[in-house]
């Protein structure tokens, strides 16, 4: 069993070594950049954590699922929890799938824009294993032309939105922009040198790339707006606003009642320290409300002074202590030198 503890300690050490070295060593040693793959390494670290995403779900299912199966106390509440979880996961996944679906055309336009860029890059590099520019431009023209009717249909759908709500106003603003981008794309495509006459001519491709990019962004914008009117999106919004936001805010707002009760029952002057604390609390409260100004207009300044001088001084002292303790703790954790190491605990 000893080897397991040693292995865990080693892995714990390895987990921290990169960021430690990256911090203490100079940016490059003998021409080798220490942080050359920093982005990739950091992404790898995030991926390790991301793999744990199912833990919470499994825990919830185990605790609440067993409560429901064995009809233990609170099983009905557990049903509510799992119902909420399923509904929200379904709605969020639906919203995701819907938004991916609705932006399919934008994706194709973006791909064509990349294709146009690639034609230019390959021409500049004199790449031999690809078709001539004229033929590639013909492919680009054909594929982009196929997208035009759909773009025009989007313009119609946006213009047909009726109502006096803000979404309709947005659609009315957006539809001429999509139309303009479509027209610009059409005229750009007509000018695109293609066929036999245009050997190696990529002069118009950068313009086409730009127009495809504009059309892609606007198509996505329009489709997103139309998607917002769908039942899928509305259901997601409904769950988010009426349950998640409302219930969450209500839950936390209960603390407002409790602090009022605590103010009456517990905030008593029993010593000089508590009197001092009460005075500071009163000054801060009077300094942050409009009615404090009715008594004396200097309360906000007093409040700021209290917060930025004595309170900041005291808090900084506490913070410095906490930071130093945190560093020591981190060091001990990293080197597994806790009095009872995590690795050795059964």
């Amino acid at each position, binding site marked *: 069993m000893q080897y397991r503890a040693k292995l865990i*300690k080693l892995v*714990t050490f390895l987990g*921290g*070594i990169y960021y*430690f070295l990256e911090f203490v060593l100079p940016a490059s040693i003998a021409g080798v950049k220490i942080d050359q793959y920093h982005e990739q390494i950091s992404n*790898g670290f995030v*991926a*390790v954590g*991301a*793999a744990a*995403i199912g*833990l*919470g*779900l499994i825990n919830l299912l185990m605790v609440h699922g067993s409560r429901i199966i064995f009809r233990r106390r609170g099983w009905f*509440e*557990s049903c509510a*929890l799992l119902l*909420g*979880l*399923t509904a*929200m*996961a379904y709605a*969020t996944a639906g919203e*995701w799938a819907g938004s991916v679906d609705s932006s399919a055309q934008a994706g194709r336009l973006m*791909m*064509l824009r*990349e*294709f146009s860029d*690639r034609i230019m890059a390959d021409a500049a590099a004199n790449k031999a294993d690809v078709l001539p520019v004229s033929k590639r431009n013909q*492919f680009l023209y054909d*594929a982009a032309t196929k997208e035009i009717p759909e773009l025009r249909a989007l313009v119609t759908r946006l213009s047909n939105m009726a109502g006096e709500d803000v979404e309709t106003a947005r659609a009315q603003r957006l539809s001429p922009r999509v139309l303009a981008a479509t027209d610009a794309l059409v005229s750009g495509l007509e000018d695109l040198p293609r066929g036999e006459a245009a050997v190696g001519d990529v002069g118009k491709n950068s313009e086409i790339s730009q127009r495809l990019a504009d059309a892609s962004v606007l198509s996505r914008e329009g489709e997103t707006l139309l998607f917002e009117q769908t039942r899928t999106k509305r259901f997601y*919004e409904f*769950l988010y606003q*009426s349950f*998640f936001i*409302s*219930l969450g*805010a209500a839950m*936390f*707002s*209960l*603390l*407002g009642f409790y602090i009022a009760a605590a103010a009456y029952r517990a905030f008593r002057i029993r010593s*000089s*320290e508590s009197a*001092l604390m009460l005075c*500071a*609390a*009163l*000054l801060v*409260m009077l300094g942050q409300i409009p009615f404090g100004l009715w008594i004396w207009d200097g309360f906000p300044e007093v409040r700021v002074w*209290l917060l930025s*001088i*004595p*309170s900041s001084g*005291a808090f900084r*002292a506490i913070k*410095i202590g906490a930071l130093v303790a945190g560093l020591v703790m981190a060091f001990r*954790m*990293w080197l597994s030198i806790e009095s009872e190491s995590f690795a050795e605990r059964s």
Partner: protein
Amino acid sequence: MSTVNYEPWTLATILTGGLGTLAIFSFLVRENRLYRIFEHLYIGIAAGLGLVVPIKNYIWPQILVPLLGYDVVQYPDGTFSKVYDPTNLLYILPLSFGCLYYFVYSRRYAWLSKLVIGFSLGMSGGLAFKGFFNEIIPQLASSFKPLVVYHDGALDLFRSFSNTVFVVTLLSVMYYFFFSFRRRARFAEMGAGLGRWLMMVCFGAFFGSTVMARMALLVERLQFLLNDWGAALRYCIGL
């Protein structure tokens, strides 16, 4: 009669939000089942959202798409946007290693989950050095305040006083937390006592700020109930 025209979804959202808020507030009268149901519903909804969003925004686009080669697209002329980068396969390593977390449910192999937990602890330990120095150095530097401040050639009494109070507070509160040795001298006791007093000012300021934080949540909810929900309710009953 209300002049506002509600869309069905908006109306349902406001009405349900109001009912949910009242169900949560019912806890103030006494602990009850309705409260517990809505409380559990909230936890479930938060968990559902927290489950899908990271998959949608991170795991799928940043790991699975490059790993599975979905970011390689075919252009209309048959060429591909790029060649599949085999280094993307390296993502399998952190993902598989991260999957060791799930051994936490196995009695026999639970130690394997400690490998990845230890790795994460070690990583946060290594990262803590950078964070510590980046955060603390500007704080230490700004703590060295001049005790006598001159402004335009004249003594600035207020700033001198404020700086002195700041430095005295900082030192005395730090001193209060020195538990490594016993304070025997009367002067030392006084220093720590002063630290305690000044901390009370800090805690008082905390209390004042806490009142605002807690009450803000309550005021927002009441505003929703009285104005938004009230208007929607009036609309529903045709007032």
